[in-house]
């Protein structure tokens, strides 16, 4: 039932708006609204009940193991939420003069410093509001750098074929052509192809390391040399930073610019699709180009650096300084983990992934890169299973829901047929990994005897499988009052 179906004309949550009506009669007639807004008219209890019940229809980290590859679905500490929801932070207007926002600016400055330390970069700007905006900022900085040097003929960004879709989409948004670099059989970049692709037209390369295939790019140092030598810059996509946190730093690998997904690595909530935060870090060469605002410390006081302070900046990417509430959660998380906790993230995420990979392999499943170490995630291919029983990766995914597990990422990376990308994260306990293996093994058994049943899954969710094709053809994108 939709919230609109609980509505009755004249119903109100009367405590939630001014009790007396104020006059806006002076508002000239030609500006006035004459039509209804279509908002629902419900009581406060109805709204509370409706959305409380809706929430129960979701799987989430707080209710289920959620091994969604490339998404780092680890525990979002409730303490981080409490810290960010303090009245003093929530009530602070973004145009508050710096002098009256020192507490907030102090947190943000220290967050910049901590992120510099864990990434090995020289400067950090917190303002991008999601990973994709961080990518945009990064590539825009690469472009601004070349432009500032008068090196404007560089027109191409190199992107491995295993990359997230945001990489090529971002390059396009920055006005670059995208050139795909193939991946070799062992999961690393095809070095021969890279060498052939690099040239004076190369603005830079976007790399995810560990890659989306769940392996560490072993030639990273060599790649950096090749690209740098050609005058290009290296962009680090931080999607998988969790795997190597504190173990190896993008700055030390030779990257010139990176974005971090604070909602992955630093455990701010995914929130059903955001808000994220895509802070960017830069090396020496790109320092002048960082997006504003950036927090500076001068004589013990904090100050926002704006356009006038950083004339070569690519400028602002939002009206204020990004998703501050998310940044505060990341700050709290990093303080609770501390120096020594950073490395543990990588260690236990990697331990969990390798353990789960080995257990699944031993249960008869095929690892896409069995000869490699798993990083914090790994790819299983169900090509053989699909051929033998007709039960596909999607069917496994849906059936897992019935077993009380959120599905891994399916059909990504695109290179691997019938794949599941599985990322358990460091916050899950061994027995939950074991239970996941049991469920996978059970589905395999079911597939042999009752493939049709498995292909009809899920059965225990609020809905069965949807007809998505029809949904896209016969678009129904909003509720409308009848008549």
């Amino acid at each position, binding site marked *: 039932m939709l919230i609109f179906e609980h509505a009755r004309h004249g119903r109100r949550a009367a*405590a939630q708006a*001014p009790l007396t009506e104020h006059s806006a009669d002076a*508002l000239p007639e030609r500006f006035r*609204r*004459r039509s209804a*807004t*279509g*908002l629902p008219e*419900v009581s406060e209890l109805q*709204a509370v009940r409706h*959305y409380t019940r809706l929430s*129960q*229809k*979701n799987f*989430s*980290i707080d209710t289920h193991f959620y091994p969604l590859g490339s998404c780092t679905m680890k525990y979002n*500490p409730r303490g981080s939420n409490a810290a960010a929801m303090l009245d*003093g*932070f929530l*009530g602070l207007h*973004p145009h508050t003069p710096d002098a*009256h*926002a*020192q507490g*907030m600016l102090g947190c943000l400055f220290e967050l910049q*410093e901590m992120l510099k*330390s864990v990434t090995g970069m020289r400067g950090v700007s917190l303002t991008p*509001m999601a990973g*994709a*905006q961080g990518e945009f900022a990064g590539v825009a900085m690469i472009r601004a750098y070349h432009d500032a040097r008068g090196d404007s003929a560089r027109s191409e960004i190199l992107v491995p074929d295993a990359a997230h879709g*945001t990489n090529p*989409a971002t390059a*396009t948004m*920055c006005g670059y052509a995208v050139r795909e670099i193939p991946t070799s059989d062992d999961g690393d970049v095809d070095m021969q192809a890279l060498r052939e692709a690099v040239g004076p037209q190369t603005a830079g390369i976007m790399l995810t390391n560990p890659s989306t295939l769940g392996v560490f790019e072993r030639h*990273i140092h060599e790649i950096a040399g090749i690209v740098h030598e050609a005058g290009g810059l290296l962009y680090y996509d931080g999607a998988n930073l969790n795997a190597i946190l504190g*173990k190896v730093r993008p700055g*030390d690998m030779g990257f010139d610019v990176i974005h971090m997904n604070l909602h992955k690595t630093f455990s701010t909530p995914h929130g*059903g*699709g955001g*808000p*994220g935060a895509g802070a960017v870090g830069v090396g020496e060469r790109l320092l002048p180009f960082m997006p504003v605002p950036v927090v500076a410390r001068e004589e013990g006081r904090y100050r926002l650096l704006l356009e006038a302070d950083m004339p070569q900046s690519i*400028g602002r*990417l939002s*009206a*204020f300084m990004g998703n501050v*509430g998310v940044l505060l959660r990341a700050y709290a998380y990093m303080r609770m983990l*501390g120096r020594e906790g950073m490395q543990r993230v990588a*260690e236990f995420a990697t*331990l969990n992934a390798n*353990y789960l990979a*080995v257990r699944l392999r031993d249960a008869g499943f095929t690892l896409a890169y069995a000869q490699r170490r798993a990083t914090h995630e790994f790819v299983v291919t169900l090509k053989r299973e699909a051929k033998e029983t007709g039960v596909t990766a999607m069917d496994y995914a849906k059936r897992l*829901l019935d077993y009380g597990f959120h599905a891994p990422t399916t059909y990504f990376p695109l290179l691997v047929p019938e794949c599941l990308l599985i990322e358990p994260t460091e916050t899950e306990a061994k027995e939950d990994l074991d239970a996941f293996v049991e469920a996978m093994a059970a589905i395999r058994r079911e597939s042999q005897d009752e493939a049709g049943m498995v292909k009809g899954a899920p059965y225990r969710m*609020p809905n*069965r499988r*949807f007809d*998505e094709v029809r949904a*896209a053809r016969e*678009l129904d*994108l*909003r509720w409308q009052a009848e008549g």
Partner: protein
Amino acid sequence: MPFIPHTETDVREMLAAIGVDRTEDLFDEIPARLRAGELEGVPPALSEMETLRLMRERAAQDGALLNFIGAGAYEHHIPAAVWEIATRGEFYSAYTPYQAEASQGTLQLIYEYQSMMTGLTGMEVSNASLYDGASALAEAVLMAVRLNRRAKTRRVLVPRSLNPAWRATAHNIVHNQGIELVDLPYDAATGRVDPAVLADYEEEGAVTALVVPQPNFFGVLEEVDTLSDWAARHGVILIAAVNPLTLALLKPPGEWGETGVDIVVGDGQPLGAPLSFGGPYYGFMCARKQHVRQMPGRIVGRAIDADGKPGFVLTLQAREQHIRRSKATSNICTNQGLVVTASTIHMAILGPEGLARVASASYANTHTLIERAATFGVRPAFTGDCFHEVALRLPRRAGAVLEAMAADGILGGYDLGRISPELDDAILVCATETKTSDDLELYIESLRRALAA
């Protein structure tokens, strides 16, 4: 080990299963010379107790000033229920609802959100949110360019009465694609765009789109019907940039002029997001149905399941980066889901009448300030009708006045000198429904004192 559940026994058993001796061995593919040393920039760990104490101190450190600034972020009451429900684990810690069967809570909520936003704006379709109002404007400009194939150039008219931070953001995002934002002046007397200035841009295909803010950055109401009709007449895509709260009383963009507009964007902050020093807020975007395939961002549609039962799914995914990659409508991926969750609950609780009362009270409070300030000669900088925000012209430079008011514990307004030297004696002031008549009186007294000093 905060947030790590492993016991020593677990670790031992897991390493044995993997067949290595130490966790460190799992990193053996990383070249040794690249390995990081100590992270000196990260302090030692604090407990949750210590972290919360530290952050409570930081949050309280600067006191709480009585706020009369809007300028793109507006202080409104948010019902306690809103964030209590939005931060329930099932919303807070869920991912983007790719697995529809396990995400009906989030999906239905977004469908309801889309319904509310289209209702509020008078449009036919809405996406599931963008980052904020400023970046949503950038996406609207890109969308307009995709839509308007007739235009010979990639020029978009942007009035100088638009929030300058939005203009800058849009420029920063779109300029690499060869798109030019052309300044449109506002009338120095009225503070709004004089439609006559559009005459320069009437040549066929001269411009792709026109952006119209309502209310504009100065709180002034633009002549939206005239502007919209001009755009329709000349085949120019009209992008409305609105404060959604004001739509409780103001004519929705879908009804501007003869035809309504093509695209509506705005910042959803006034509908349930706390000020929070600028974010997270969310950008919204609505459009005509015919434009839906050029919209960026996620969109939820109603669908039928294998049992014939209705439910909700992400739809039209073929537009998006994870499918179309370099040919996607945008690189956007994660949006502002949790804030949209809160905002949807906020709108449901307030309803049409509640929202109208908040808007009226904000309107009335700001107009009370205008009247009261006039008693000692402080008058609006512009003659155009304003809504719930006003530029006041002071008899001196604003900076010192605002500092004096801050010493009284009052954020007296946004210094318009920050955006233009000719406005350095003007402040932008906003009094929402959160202000009592005592608050207004405090403001007036503080301003009077600051000017007398």
